[in-house]
């Protein structure tokens, strides 16, 4: 999630919007009745709130170049947090890279413990945890799959993290790993659907059931 008010330029933009709205409210109130202006003002405030919310969600710019290699190398963008070391994910990466010169970038969003932590930027601990998981995962990919892999910590919003990664990594396809539907916050927030809707690249969703893996069961699958 983006803060829609991140700089003086953003503040100025909002100032101009408020000024325009205020002129319309004042004009309407002068032409009709103060109550009409008040109602119009309330509607504008609601619209402003909606715009702020929409902007805070962020989206991938339409002019973002989604390059497709061209050097014969297959580039795989993997997005995972707690499931980053899951067996199902590693297997899927192996399948995707089979018979290809594959380059893998693992993005691990640093997830704030709460919305308050997110807004207060208190995600130092989350970054440390995400980095630990990501590093172990990259080592495992390199050792088990014998593939070249790098890792980065991404934005706490997985879709923003994907957008950020695509700016520097010309992925050919994306793999998003989540917990099973009943326990996945990413699925609840529609991370995978949104990625499929916004990105013109194949998006594979891998479900990792860590509890089943810990129990030694085979309950892993691909959604």
């Amino acid at each position, binding site marked *: 999630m983006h803060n829609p008010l991140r700089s*003086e330029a953003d503040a100025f933009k909002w100032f101009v919007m408020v*000024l325009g709205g*205020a002129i319309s409210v004042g004009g309407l109130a002068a032409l009709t009745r103060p109550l009409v202006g008040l109602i119009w003002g309330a509607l504008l405030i609601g619209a402003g709130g909606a715009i702020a919310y929409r902007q805070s969600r962020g989206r991938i710019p339409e002019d973002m170049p989604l390059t497709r290699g061209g050097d014969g190398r297959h580039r795989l963008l993997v997005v995972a947090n707690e499931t980053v070391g899951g067996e199902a994910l590693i297997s899927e990466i192996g399948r995707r890279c089979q018979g290809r010169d594959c380059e893998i970038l693992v993005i691990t969003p*640093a997830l704030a413990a709460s919305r308050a932590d997110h807004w207060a930027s208190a995600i130092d601990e989350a970054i440390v945890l995400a980095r630990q998981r990501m590093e172990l995962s990259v080592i495992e990919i390199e050792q088990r799959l014998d593939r070249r892999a790098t890792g*980065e*910590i991404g934005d*706490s919003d997985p879709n923003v993290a994907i957008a950020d990664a695509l700016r520097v990594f010309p992925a050919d396809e994306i793999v998003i790993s989540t917990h099973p539907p009943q326990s996945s916050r990413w699925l609840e927030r529609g991370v995978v659907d949104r990625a499929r809707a916004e990105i013109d690249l194949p998006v594979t969703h891998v479900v990792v059931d860590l509890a089943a893996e810990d129990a030694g069961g085979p309950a892993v699958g691909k959604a």
Partner: protein
Amino acid sequence: MESATVTLDHPHEDHHHGPPEANQSSRIDRQTLGILLFIVSEIMLFGAFFAAYFFLRVVVDPPNWPPDPYELPVAVAFVNTCILVSSSFTIHYALEAIRKGNHAGLKLGLALTWLLGATFLFIQINEYAHIGFSARDLGFGSIFYSLTGLHGAHVFVGLLLLSFANIRAFRGHYGPEAENHLGVEVPGIYWHFVDVMWIVVFLTVYVL
């Protein structure tokens, strides 16, 4: 990447002692976050005053607003509003100038902003002196002085911040890089907030 980027190519900090290094992982620097949180608290403060205003006006519902025989100097307030609104454009000009490395533009924009803000405050104090009622005259007088006075206090604080920014600008402290003009960026955000609040105060108290 907007958040902290960690790659395996980086050396591990095996010899690091003490707490982990502070990072700015959440896409916003601390100073800007600080002023934003401050502004959020200020919005709540203004909200309380607006609630009192609307309580008096809607719930108490006097036959006329402003109550007879009081009148508000709407024309003077409108001119004052134009002055304050202009100051948002000048401070934005100052920021745009320094982003392009134009120090003369920065100084001009900041100086104009300060002058416009000071003029606003001077006119408002002058308005108080000639308005013909005091804060002790009915709830109307109390809430009028409370709302406009609260805003005036914020303008005063903004002028202090702008004074520091002006002094530093004329000493050549700022540069085009974002981290080199935070001392203007942060007062700029605050100043826009002060202007937005005045627009709301003007609309509410003088127009509607």
